[in-house]
């Protein structure tokens, strides 16, 4: 059965069909949410919430956009809701750069943590745009659809986000060297 048929069955309340459809998207959604909210436990909860919302509201999916885009949209909105609620409850952004030595930075996990923490410093709109573009590899028009904005906005958000990210990463001791080193490779 192709996706459309499965979706049709899912719309009639068939859980298995729904599960089959989402199977290929689960990890993408989980990762997007993880990048947005910044911790695994919350990301896991929100991923479940996203799919539950998708299932409950599946009749509202009319097939105008791709199902994947629709899922992303729910994921982004769910994450944003969560961030808004969390805001003020905890404003903890552990600053890793303070205790980094240049050697640590070669460590892949460290690199990932630094990127995560730098992403978290961006405004939500910028962060989401850059995550969807560079980590998820979506096109500008898809991102525009997901974030319910126009392409011009998406373009400027991504541009600013990436430039800001670059500048921030350069400020981290040691990181700039890697830049230079790797550039020459």
């Amino acid at each position, binding site marked *: 059965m192709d996706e459309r048929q499965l979706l049709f069955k899912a719309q009639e*309340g068939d*859980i298995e069909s*729904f*599960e089959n459809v989402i199977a290929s998207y*689960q*990890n993408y959604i*989980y*990762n997007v949410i*993880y990048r947005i909210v910044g911790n*695994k436990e919350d*990301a*896991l909860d929100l*991923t*479940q919430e996203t*799919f*539950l919302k998708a*299932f*409950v509201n599946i009749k509202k999916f009319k097939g105008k956009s791709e199902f994947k885009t629709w899922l992303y949209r729910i994921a982004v909105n769910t994450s944003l809701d969560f961030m808004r609620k969390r805001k003020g409850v905890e404003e903890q952004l552990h600053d890793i750069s303070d205790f980094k030595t240049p050697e640590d930075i070669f460590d*892949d996990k460290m*690199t*990932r943590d630094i*990127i995560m923490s730098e992403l978290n410093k961006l405004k939500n709109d910028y962060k989401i745009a*850059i*995550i969807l*573009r*560079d*980590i998820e*590899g979506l*096109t*500008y028009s898809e991102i525009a659809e997901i974030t319910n904005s126009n392409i011009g906005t998406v*373009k400027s958000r*991504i*541009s600013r986000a*990436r*430039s800001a*990210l*670059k500048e921030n*990463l*350069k400020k981290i001791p040691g990181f700039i060297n890697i*830049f230079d080193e*790797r*550039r020459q490779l």
Partner: protein
Amino acid sequence: MECYAVRRLLNPYIDEELDEKSMDDIQAHLDSCEDCKLEYNELLYTKRLLENTPPLELPDNFGDMLHIKLIEGRKNNRRKPIKRMIAVAAFAVASIFVLSFGFNFLMNSTKLSSKAPLSAKSAANYSSEASTGGKEAEPKLKNSVYSSLNQANRGLDSGYERKITKDATISIEMNSVDEGYNKILNISKQYNGYIESTSENTSESGQKTVNIVLKIPADDFEYAISNIKSLGDVKMIRINSSDITEQYYDVQTRIKNLEIQEESLQNLMKKASNISDILQIEDKLNDVQTQIDSYKSQIKLWDSMTNMSTINLTFLSAVPQAGIGKIFSENFFKDVLNAGTKSLNVFFEFIKYAIVMIIYLLPFAILIYLIYKGYKLLKK
């Protein structure tokens, strides 16, 4: 192409989201400009960093966890249409209620204003009721009737004053009758009244009874009553008031007519020359004058009645407590029985009111519940 223009488009260039011409132009520029090339590489590197972040894997049991949630979700979802219907119904009922209240209110206010011109007529009905019907109404209630009568004045012109007589009969039990008598003296002084008569007697059992007829200016009647009530244990109280306005003015007009008659008779008298005429006229004049006198005395009586209210007071001294043996007489069982039935009555009365209250509040309770439910549903 200038550097600043290239820098602005570097990010879309990296993402290949530009048209072909721009892509070519920027590539050409980057080949020739070291600074822009560096910027480009840094941005590209940042992008690669992001692209290369290793993705997380969902835990293995995610599918199972989600499955449970989906089943729950489906259950809730199936129930939802009914809930939504309830919410809609609740909202409809609520709006009907609000509308009906508003409508009622509106109707009442328009009714009131349209009724105003008729109030004279309705007040007239009222007064006939008041003068013929039961007059044991509380002074307060009476007052409200008076005020409405006063406003309407039954078509009489507003110069007429209403004539109302008030009297009360009160019997009070107290420990010291003499002290009560002194207090009454004070009250009569306080309100500029007077004691018309007193009598006192003592029964065989040693119970002292004092009867007092007290006159109090009509305006202070109610205050005096409440003062007297506080003197002791009120055994009986009856307050009467009657509206004699109609009779009063009736008599007054009769007096006026008679006076006119008197005047014309006197004029005739002056003109009369023969004896038999004079005698006849004198006879008639006498008649008229006696009538006038009797009516006038009636008016005087009424005036004093309306100016001063009468309070018939009876003070009873409390019966000295009899010995223990007497306490357990047959009266005791009667009292016990009375107490029992009384408390039962109170209890059933209470139950009755509780039920009435519940029925009365039920629609509101349901309404509030439904609104609450609907609100919760909408919030979800």
